[in-house]
Each structure stands twice: as structure tokens, then as C-alpha cells.
């Protein structure tokens, strides 16, 4: 098979990760093959599939309060997930190379504890830990935590930035090499009181001694997820990879160019930030077969009740009286009322009128029912086709600089990646754009990211040169 790229540009290697399908309506729980999203065996299955396919890492999302709609717990989607750190540590026991990436909120945690947890995970996995830093401001989730909901919305990235800085300072408080453990002369530590740190900024007033030695990767790989202007700057300044939702070629290329273009002002090069969109896929024996499967899956993902619930988020009112197979509601949204949805990021806080006009126009033009409109609007499968077709598309996407790879979200737990691993991955390997064996030990190795030098070591090098 010939490579897609005919220019002088070197062929890029694709990075692949597996997103454990969990709490959302793209996970099809009604399928007879759908298994538990909680039992550890499900995590083991997906992780081993991903490792068998030589994926870079497994990715876990997080949510710290159950979603509500209309004052009641949302009951239509998968609900319930285990603790991120605990699952990843356990997965380290049943995998050898696969990276282990967890979403951890910087609002409802403290830097000392998170730094300990990631340093411990990195030690316990021999260098495979990654952190997807997310932020939150909402009081709704805060009601589960000591701090409560006092963080102002505009402060969330400032806290995230200081949080990440503090965690890196804690991890750098051990340079590596402090532990001598010489039995004969009785020297355990090279010097007394390792791990000294002092971080006094607007959000944190902490100091003392960190109690975990420097982990194998130095720092966990840091992901940022979020598409706002602040989020892009945060990623460009501080992250190793960015988890995006731009699954189309044109949107992907625009985002890629934008974010990579922001790196220079932080003294960074384009290869120091990987861009990895979260995408879905449907495979079939023929193109038509795949399209039909995709259509069926979309209907499973968007039931009538799910479609109504989706609309209620924009209308911000109870729409249960409207037939989801009928036309859009003729009533106007409630703009000033309390949000009907709690615990979900996108509640159309700022763009309600504009969005409503667009939806009405689409529905009218294509003569869509509520349910068909929601199917039209939401997360269609990014890659649909035969394995050969999907492999070509994925490769073309990466070679066109629309991304550096993909975080694949199967729609079935836990077997949804099996077919991809068995059919698409070998084709990517044949094209020479995906590894056939792990070349390194750590996640940083897989992603082609440098192991961060300790600041003191970097200083010594500078002084010597």
C-alpha cells in the first residue's frame, strides 16, 4: 500500500489512545453486548485491547456530581463511575506499557495530595502516568466538597495555572538521586530533609516537605481539555497534549494551526504539544454496511427522551409535553430562570438566542423532527467505513495536520475497541504510520516527549556549556 503523502514532508506517526466509554449518551448501554462500566474486568478488557494494539494510553474522564435535569438526577445515560486514581493504579498491575491518563479537577483537590497521587501512580506504573487537568467553578459540584462553591468562574484558570505550577514545584522538590540506601555505611538519604518547597501565590499558601521521591517520568504527562481562549493559552503555555473535540478535517486544521501557533511565545516548539481530538468510529464490511450501522447506533444513542432532554438544555424548560418525533416546540426558551441542567459543562449560558435560531433553521430546511434534529446536531461518528477506508481517513487527517493522533471513544463497553484493534491498527502499521512494537518504556517515550530535566540539572548543564 502506498503512503498518502507524496510531498517532501516527513510522514507523521499517529498517536492512538482509548477513551473508556462511560457517563454520556454516546455509550450505548441498551446493546445486548454492553457490559459493566464499573466492574474492574471491563477496564482490564479495554486496557489489554489497547495495549495489544500498541496504543499510547488509556484515558478516563471524570465527573464529581451526578447530572441533574429539572431538579432530578438524569437517568437516561450511563450513570456511575469508579475513582480515577484507584482504577489507573490497578490497571498498572495488568498492563506493562500502556499509558494511564486520568482526568483530575484542579478546583476540588489540593496540590500536595494530587502531586502525591500522580507521583505514586508514576512510580507504581514505572513511568506511565498522565494527568488531564480540568477546571470547574460551579457551586453545584462544590456541594460535595469542603471548599464548597466559592471559586469565581473567572478564577478557575488562574487556580488551574497555579495548581499545575505548584504540582510541578512539588515534583521538582526531589531532584532524583536523594535516596542512596547504602546498607553498609547506613546512608539512606544523601542529605537531610528532602522535598523542600514553598509556594505562596494568590490561590495557595503552602510549604514544607514533599514526601514522594521524584517519579520515573519526572512529571506526569499533562493534558488539557477545553476549547476556550483561556483554555488554548493554558495548553500552549503548560500542557504536553491537548484533548479536543474537533473531529472534522477543516475544524481540526484550524484548531491545530491556532494552538501550535501559540507555542512560540512561551519558548516552546510545535512538537512539544500534541493535539489529540476525541473521535468515534463505526466499522463495516462495506461502506454501506458501516453507514447503516452508524445510523442504527445514532438512533440508540439518541432516544426520544434523550432528544427531549437535549432540547430542554437550550430551552431551559420542561418540554416533556412535546412529541420527540414531532416538530420543534413552538414556545420560547426561559432565559432568566435557573439553569434546568446541573453538572454539565455546556448549558448555552451565553449563546441561547443564536443557537435557537440556527437549530430552527436547520430543522425547517431539512424537515426534521426533534429527535432527528438532535441526531443531526450532536456528535456524529467521526470515522465511518470499512477498516481500509477508516485507516486511510485517519492517516490523511494526521498527515494534513488536523491532529497528531486520536483519542478513540468506542460506543460499547468494554468490547468496543476490539474490532478496531484487529482490523484498522494492522492497516495503519502496514502504511508505516503506527508502531508495531513499543519502542520505549514510559508514556513520554511513546508520545515522543522529553523527560523533563530537573531545573537544577538543567541549570548545571547551562553553567557547564
Amino acid at each position, binding site marked *: 500500500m502506498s503512503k498518502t503523502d507524496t510531498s517532501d514532508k516527513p510522514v507523521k506517526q499517529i498517536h492512538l489512545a482509548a477513551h473508556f466509554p462511560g457517563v454520556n449518551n454516546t455509550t450505548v448501554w*441498551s446493546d445486548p453486548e454492553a457490559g459493566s462500566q464499573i466492574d474492574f474486568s471491563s477496564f482490564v478488557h479495554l486496557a489489554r485491547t489497547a495495549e495489544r494494539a500498541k496504543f499510547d494510553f488509556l484515558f478516563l474522564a471524570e465527573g464529581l456530581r451526578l447530572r441533574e435535569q429539572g431538579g432530578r*438526577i438524569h437517568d437516561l445515560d450511563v450513570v456511575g463511575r469508579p475513582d480515577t*486514581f*484507584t482504577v489507573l493504579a490497578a490497571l498498572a498491575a495488568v498492563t506493562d506499557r500502556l499509558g494511564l491518563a486520568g482526568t483530575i479537577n484542579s478546583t476540588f483537590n*489540593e496540590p500536595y495530595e494530587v502531586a*502525591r497521587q500522580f507521583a505514586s501512580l508514576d512510580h*507504581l506504573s514505572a513511568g506511565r502516568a498522565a494527568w488531564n487537568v480540568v477546571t470547574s467553578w460551579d457551586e453545584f459540584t462544590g456541594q460535595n466538597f469542603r471548599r464548597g462553591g466559592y471559586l469565581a468562574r473567572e478564577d478557575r484558570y488562574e487556580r488551574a495555572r497555579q495548581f499545575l505550577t505548584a504540582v510541578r514545584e512539588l515534583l521538582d522538590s526531589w531532584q532524583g538521586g536523594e535516596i542512596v540506601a547504602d546498607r553498609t555505611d547506613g546512608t*539512606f538519604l544523601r542529605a537531610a530533609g528532602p522535598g523542600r518547597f514553598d509556594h505562596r501565590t494568590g490561590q495557595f499558601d503552602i510549604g514544607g516537605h514533599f*514526601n514522594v521521591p521524584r517519579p520515573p517520568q519526572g512529571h506526569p504527562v499533562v493534558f488539557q481539555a477545553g476549547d476556550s481562549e483561556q483554555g488554548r493559552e493554558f495548553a500552549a503555555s503548560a500542557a504536553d497534549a491537548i484533548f479536543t473535540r474537533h473531529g472534522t478535517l477543516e475544524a481540526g486544521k484550524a484548531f491545530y494551526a491556532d494552538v501550535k501557533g501559540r507555542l512560540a511565545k512561551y519558548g516552546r516548539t510545535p512538537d512539544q504539544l500534541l493535539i489529540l481530538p476525541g473521535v468515534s468510529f463505526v466499522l463495516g464490511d462495506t461502506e454501506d454496511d458501516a453507514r447503516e450501522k452508524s445510523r442504527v447506533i445514532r438512533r440508540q444513542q439518541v432516544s426520544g427522551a434523550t432528544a427531549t432532554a437535549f432540547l430542554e438544555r437550550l430551552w431551559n424548560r420542561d418540554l416533556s409535553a412535546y412529541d420527540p418525533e414531532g416538530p420543534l416546540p413552538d414556545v420560547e426558551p426561559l432565559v432568566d430562570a435557573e439553569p434546568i441542567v446541573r453538572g454539565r459543562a455546556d448549558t448555552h449560558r451565553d449563546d441561547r438566542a443564536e443557537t435557537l435560531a440556527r437549530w430552527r433553521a436547520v430543522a425547517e430546511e431539512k424537515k426534521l423532527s426533534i429527535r432527528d434534529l438532535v441526531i443531526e446536531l450532536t456528535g456524529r461518528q467521526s470515522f465511518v467505513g470499512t477498516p481500509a477506508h477508516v485507516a486511510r481517513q485517519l492517516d490523511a487527517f494526521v498527515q494534513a495536520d488536523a491532529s497528531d493522533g486520536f483519542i478513540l471513544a468506542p460506543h460499547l463497553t468494554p468490547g468496543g475497541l476490539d474490532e478496531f484493534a484487529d482490523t484498522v491498527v494492522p492497516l495503519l502499521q502496514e502504511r508505516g504510520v503506527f508502531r508495531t512494537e513499543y519502542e520505549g518504556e514510559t508514556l513520554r517515550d511513546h508520545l515522543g516527549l522529553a523527560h523533563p530535566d530537573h531545573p537544577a540539572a538543567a541549570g548545571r548543564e547551562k553553567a557547564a556549556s
Partner: protein
Amino acid sequence: MSRSTTPLHLAVALDGAGWHPLAWREPDARPADLFTAPYWADLAAEAERGLLDLVTIEDSLGLQSSLPTGPDDRTDRVRGRLDAVLTAARIAPLTRHVGLVPVAVVTHTEPFHLSKAVATLDYVSTGRAGVQVRVSARADEAAHFGRRTVPQLPVAELDSPAGRALLAELFGEAADYVEVVRRLWDSWEDDAEIRDVATGRFIDRDKLHYIDFEGPHFSVKGPSITPRPPQGQPVVAALAHRTEPFALVAGSADLGFTTPHDTGQAAAIVAEIREAQERAGRGGETVHVFGDLVVHLDEEPGRAAERRARLDAGLDAPYSGDALVFAGTSAELADLLLEFAAAGLSGFRLRPATLPYDLARISRDLVPELQRRGAFRTAYEADTLRGLLGLPRPANRYATA
């Protein structure tokens, strides 16, 4: 000697290279491996070989120190440790029977996070999770979080009014913390996930419950994000040396670790905990009281005492801590344990003086000795930690049935 007796429960407490400060210098010690998974996996496997009920894994939010105020200036002792919950999770898939009980500090952490972490440890170990809750009265650990200050009281002043007030505050908060954690474990009824394709509902939301906890240190709304774990409620343990923590054990825990130095003390501790249990309205519930002992074990008479003396010779004064230090043969230890058991203890947590040596002596010498006396199991008789400890699976407080 052969006599019929109630079988004992046996745990080991894992900490670094062992509980003796110079354990890391022993010939078979692995001080360079303390921060690697295989080290902990090997220790857990050895405990499981001995059919032990559970292992605990020590933890703290600061560097180990010989001082109560902050890090010391020593370079000849083990310093640094991994998060105990993550360590327990890392070894869970590699073991099948032994209970896994990490220490978690409750003074500076979030009950919501710990609740789901221990529930998840229960899932990844299929029903073998517990947690040993610990308060932190150290000013240096408080400074690592910067959210509150803890007055630095000398140990001698813990019985002063200020000391008692501090202990009451910290242990009162710990009791609230455990209450929140337990309510969160119950916040999903066991059959809340229904996957009802006909109605399109994944859960029956009437079987999920807000816990609505309000207290002086935190309020938590709930429900948990993690469904009720396999054991319903994992086992809650605490180490207790005095009245305030005895009250925590009696009112909140399933298992208390205590440090009697003779059978008279053992009987007095058990009596105090039982009384507090009655006061807390838990008179009818099983609350295990284990005795903690630091153990040097060798089969050749006098050898353990020699090892202990050799290790102590490297210190300014012989090693002594909160718990009785035993050095002797497995027959002598079995005698001692059975005496203590007769005073009312239902089991023991042995703290190996050196690892892995004393742990192997426990699993390979002490356990067969106790088995010969009919005082310890000869095979695992249950799949869960609650099962091993004879604790029932708790009913869900929110279920209306």
C-alpha cells in the same frame, strides 16, 4: 500443646522496610525497591501465603520524622513513601484473598474523594477493601495544605485542656468524615442500576440518595458518583491509644488496632471500647479489637533476641514505640497471642520489625504453629474481607425495600 480455641484473626502492618528504624539495613532488605510496585506485590503475596486476614499499608502526608514538629535532620532512616490507597490498588489484581487496608489521613482530605477511592479499591479487589482512618495533629502536615492551622502541642500536653480540646476536635471531625464516607457508600442502593430498555432508563433514580450531611468542618450533598461497592461498605479501621480514638473505634469503625503491653491493659482497653460502643448505640454490632505488636521472629531460641539486640545496638536507645516489641520463637508468640486473646482481643496486627524477613517468619512459622493449635484458619473460607472477619454485609440505610 493442643487446645480448642476461637480462631484468631491475623493482620500485618506494612511500612517501608519494617518497623525497626534500621530494618532497611538488614541483609535481605530491599531499600532501593521501596518505591516500586514489585516490592509491595511480593509482601502482599507473602501475607496471602500465610492466609492472613488483611494487610495494612502505612501512610502520612509528611516526611517520616523522629520529631513531632516536622522533618528531622536524619539521613540514616527511611524517608519518603507512596500513597497507600494507590499502592493497595496496584497490588489488588495480583492477590485473591487477602484484605487490603490502606491508611488514609482524614484531617486534610475530602471524604467524597476517599469514599469513591475505597469503594473502587473494593471493586478492583472484588470485595477485599478497607481503610484505616488517621487524624493528623502535625503542624507541618497542615502547612502542606494551607487551609487550616493545627496548634503544635507537645505530646506531654495532650492531657491538658488544650490537648483534650484538640483531640476532641480532630477525632470528632474524623467521626463525621467516616459518617460521610459510609453514607456515600449507601447513597446508591444495590439494585439502583436497572438498564430498563423499555423505558430508556439506565438507573432507577429513586434508589439514589442525597446524603445531605452538615457538620462544622464540611457539608456533603451526595450521592456518590460510584455505585455501592461489593461489600456494601468496606471495612473501616482506626489505630487507637486513648479515650478519644477509642470513641472513634466504638462509634465509627469495624476494627480497632490497640497497643496493650499486658493482658490487664488488653482487658481494660476492650472494656472501654465496649462501653463506648454501648453509649454510641452500637452495642449489638461486631467491632473487632486487635492488639498491635512489633515482632522479631526466629525459630532458633534466643536468635530473635540477638537480632533485636544487634539492630538496637545501632540506635542511641533500644527501639520502642507505641506497641509492645516481641522477640522470640513462633511458639512463644503463639502463647502470648492466645493469652491476649483470652483477655478479649479478637485478633492481632503484627508489625514486622524487618521486611521481608519477619513477615516470612509470620506466614511460614507462626501461622503453622497457630494452625497446629487450632487457633488459625487452614484455608481462606471467604471471598471478601468482611467474610474473613465475620462481619455481615451491612443493610443499606436508605433502602426502603
